[in-house]
């Protein structure tokens, strides 16, 4: 099937939201560097944050090949309303319970999204999706083991985690906000769409959390935090961007 202009637009929209999610969560999670609960976890969490930024670079490079500006320009010169990340990823790191729950929800969604994209007819994207399979598998393994351990870590630990799950669930559903070209992407075989992704994500995370002893809120009783995919963000994103681009902005043309 020949790609029309709409397909390319939809593809770019998809790549932007994925790349922005990864860049922003990578930056957020790196804020734990030096502050992690223990040395080994500090290193593991920081290393995964670095992986996320690397994954976002691979996607920004695909966008560049599709005619968008180069990765540094795209990453460091946009304002918050030009970002397509979900609101979930832009929120401050909070305490470790929130960061861990976010990591769990986000990384399972990413893993399934990449799994779906491994079969994309847009080959450069399916190649990227396959390239990071092992990396993402470790990330979800890390999240699962922590969620399980903290569920069994005593009353304070359990209730902190459960509260974070309750508060984060709607934000997580915001990840699956439909784009403007869902039908086009599905028809062309580029991506199976947000609705399918959400369903597969629920099928994965709900039984997993229940097996750890948590109670998962019901989708029908939860308001999804939509807006991020269309440039509507919380007040937390712009300060993050200001901080992230502080050095770049001193001399945007500098040779690194």
């Amino acid at each position, binding site marked *: 099937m020949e790609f029309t202009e709409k397909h390319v637009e939809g593809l770019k929209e998809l790549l932007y939201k994925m790349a922005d999610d990864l860049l922003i969560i990578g930056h957020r999670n790196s*804020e734990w*560097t*030096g*502050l992690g609960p*223990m*040395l*080994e*976890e500090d*290193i*593991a969490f920081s*290393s*995964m944050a670095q992986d996320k930024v690397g994954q976002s670079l691979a996607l920004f490079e695909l966008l560049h090949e599709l005619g968008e500006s180069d990765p540094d320009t795209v990453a460091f010169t946009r304002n918050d309303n030009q970002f397509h990340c979900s609101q979930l990823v832009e929120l401050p790191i909070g305490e470790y319970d929130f960061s861990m729950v976010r990591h769990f929800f986000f990384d399972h969604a990413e893993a399934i999204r990449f799994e779906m994209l491994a079969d994309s007819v847009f080959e450069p994207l399916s190649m990227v999706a396959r390239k990071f399979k092992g990396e993402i598998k*470790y990330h979800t*393994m*890390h999240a699962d*083991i*922590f969620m399980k*351990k903290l569920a069994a870590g005593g009353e304070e630990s359990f209730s902190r985690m459960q509260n974070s799950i309750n508060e984060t669930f709607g934000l997580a559903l915001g990840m699956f906000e439909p784009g403007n070209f869902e039908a086009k992407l599905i028809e062309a075989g580029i991506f199976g769409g947000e609705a399918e992704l959400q369903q597969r994500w629920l099928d994965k995370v709900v039984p997993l959390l229940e097996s750890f002893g948590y109670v998962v809120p019901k989708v029908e009783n939860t308001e999804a935090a939509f807006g991020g995919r269309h440039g509507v963000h919380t007040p937390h994103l712009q300060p993050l961007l200001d*901080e992230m681009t502080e050095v770049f902005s001193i001399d945007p043309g500098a040779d690194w």
Partner: protein
Amino acid sequence: MIVKSLDPRIERAALDDESKIGELNVHEHFETYEVFQQVKRGTHHQHVGNVHAPNAEMAMLFAKEQYCRRGAAVNLWVVATSNVFVTEYVDADIFETTEDKLYRDPNSYKVMDRINAFKARTSKV
């Protein structure tokens, strides 16, 4: 009082508020696990270091990031350090041997390792 940091993330953490910093006593540390890494299937697992962790599963998680970030591993063992039986250095003389029994030294094994490594190297080319 902790020196003010130029890093905004450290500033946000308000570490200079000493009341927020809990004390960690000796027995509150997690136990350690010894980490053994296998570089290639069929080769020996080799000791590469240790990690603190609350259980073996998490030790594996941490070991992967501490010791295998640059690839070069296909398998990991983690073993609680407390499960390792250790000889005493005062008994190190049990390993001594007299010079007139060289015929009992299994030198050929050491040579075989080198021969096999050479074969593996050259067969790749």
